[in-house]
């Protein structure tokens, strides 16, 4: 309807788990882009997917960075959002344990595993168990925040941990806790989500934001060392850890397409089996409703 309407300002978030958003903010790309139109750009820090989605939900931001599965969960609970862009495909979660104690997912039977319920590592763990023919009933999942899980696996309170970067990278570097199972395709993506209302009112501006993101993504690919420095400085982690984290990020597929859809649907099914999604939910339909690739497709053509 109001295609020529113009927002007064656009509120974006930035998050340590989305390096592209950090580059976007650091390089001032969005500000430059919207300055000519006299539209203000504001940045809000999201400390996790859940906060990013809460901000979207309460209209505190217009665009938010969240893990794909998290966005799916929120969508099912009625949060009016759409996934319009994939800022990276990170391998940010894997299963870790003390060196030599656990060598495969099958060894987890009857063990205590730390994970944060509802987050990507948790979903990763469930999918890994499923693949190995186990279910959540065969193990004891201890709900711990990511950083607390890192502590608990080191002190021996739990036998394994579904880790998350940068905790994972740091633990790997500093102690004898090692990854024993990894699978990039069980990680959901770092997505960019927009409020539905915003997308309806200002479709042109969704495109413009995605253009900015696209610019930032290209810059990220071209300047890996600078990106690591930005990440290290913003998140106050060491350069070493930042580099390790970036190595595990794949910035090559920005458009939400069928491949991504398949991974998200896989996560959704596992969530459903474990009661985090309503048993009557049709995961495929829900994912269709969540994904909107038309903006990204348009600007990339």
């Amino acid at each position: 309807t109001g295609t020529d309407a113009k927002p007064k300002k656009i509120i974006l978030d930035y998050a340590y788990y989305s390096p592209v958003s950090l580059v976007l903010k650091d390089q001032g790309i969005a500000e430059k882009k919207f300055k000519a139109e006299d539209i203000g750009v504001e940045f809000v820090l999201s400390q996790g997917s859940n906060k990013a989605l809460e901000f979207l939900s309460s209209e505190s931001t217009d665009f938010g960075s969240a893990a794909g599965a998290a966005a799916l969960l929120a969508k099912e609970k009625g949060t009016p959002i759409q996934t319009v862009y994939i800022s990276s495909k990170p391998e940010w979660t894997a299963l870790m344990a003390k060196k030599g104690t656990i060598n495969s997912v099958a060894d987890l039977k009857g063990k205590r595993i730390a994970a944060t319920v509802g987050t990507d590592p948790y979903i990763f763990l469930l999918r890994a168990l499923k693949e190995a023919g186990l279910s959540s009933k065969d193990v004891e999942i201890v709900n711990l925040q990511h950083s607390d899980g890192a502590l608990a696996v080191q002190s021996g309170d739990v036998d394994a941990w579904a880790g998350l970067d940068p905790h994972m990278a740091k633990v790997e570097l500093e102690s004898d806790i090692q990854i024993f199972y990894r699978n990039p395709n069980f990680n959901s993506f770092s997505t960019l989500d927009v409020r539905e209302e915003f997308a309806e009112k200002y479709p042109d501006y969704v495109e413009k934001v995605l253009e900015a993101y696209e610019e930032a993504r290209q810059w990220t690919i071209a300047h890996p060392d600078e990106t690591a420095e930005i990440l290290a400085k913003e998140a106050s982690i060491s350069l070493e850890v930042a580099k390790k984290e970036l190595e595990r990020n794949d910035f090559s597929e920005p458009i939400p397409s069928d491949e991504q859809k398949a991974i998200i649907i896989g996560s959704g099914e596992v969530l459903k089996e474990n009661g985090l999604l309503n048993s009557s939910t049709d995961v495929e339909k829900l994912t269709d409703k969540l994904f909107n690739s038309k903006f990204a497709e348009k600007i990339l053509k």
Partner: protein
Amino acid sequence: MEHREHAVLSKANKTKELRFTKPKINRKVLLGSILPLTLLIIWEASGRMGIIESHLLPIPSVIVEGLYQMALEGTLWGHIGTTLMRVFAGFLIGTFTAVIIGSLVGYMKIFEELIDPIIQAFRSIPSLAWVPLFILWMGIGESSKVILIAVGVFFPVYLNMVAGIRGVDRKLIEVGKIYGYTSFEIVSKIILPASLPSLLTGIRSGLGLGWMFVVAAEIMGASKGLGYLLIVGQNTYSPDVIIGSIILFAILGKFTDWLLKFIEERSLRWQDSYANQR
């Protein structure tokens, strides 16, 4: 004759007062529920009329429905029971420790100078900040949760205990000294009863903090409890679960506080105070 009349008059008075005793309690409950009920009605109405979107703030009936479902499944009682047990245990430990240490600090200058400064510093450390330290020190077992709650309870009780003691009327302490009371007797027979009003306030404050620390405690590897429910609700974007657990916190908190208030009123009958005058 005149005397007679008078006696009759005062008797009439008496029955009148007796008759009013029962309804008084009801009136209190009634008045107290006006505000919460009004809020509930506005909330429900604006939810139904679409002023508040349900993904932001589900309407009360949906939340109650959800809680009812959990009650039917039986999981609700597990959550409530677990949290109640933890708060209760932590409350007891925290209060007990605070009374002991508070008495020492309030009564003996040397203790005050030695340990009060560090306690005051610890007091402002947020509950979430304690979590990693507790995992390091005590692991993620039940005891570490209970102790974390006890830490929360400790500070207000301690503060009020010390303040209560320092405010005890010098005149009464002198009476104990005249009878050759030992320090311990002076504390137990004069200082503790005299600082009881302040202590009870501290205990009520402490219980409130105990409820607050539950969330931090149940971040530490819980699989049951209201705090766990709240965090899972936040992680899975379920506003009904979040609000449901908040409401449970409020109800349980109110109920336990009411118990303490009841004890407070009973044990402060002797006070020649503004409250007892009415």
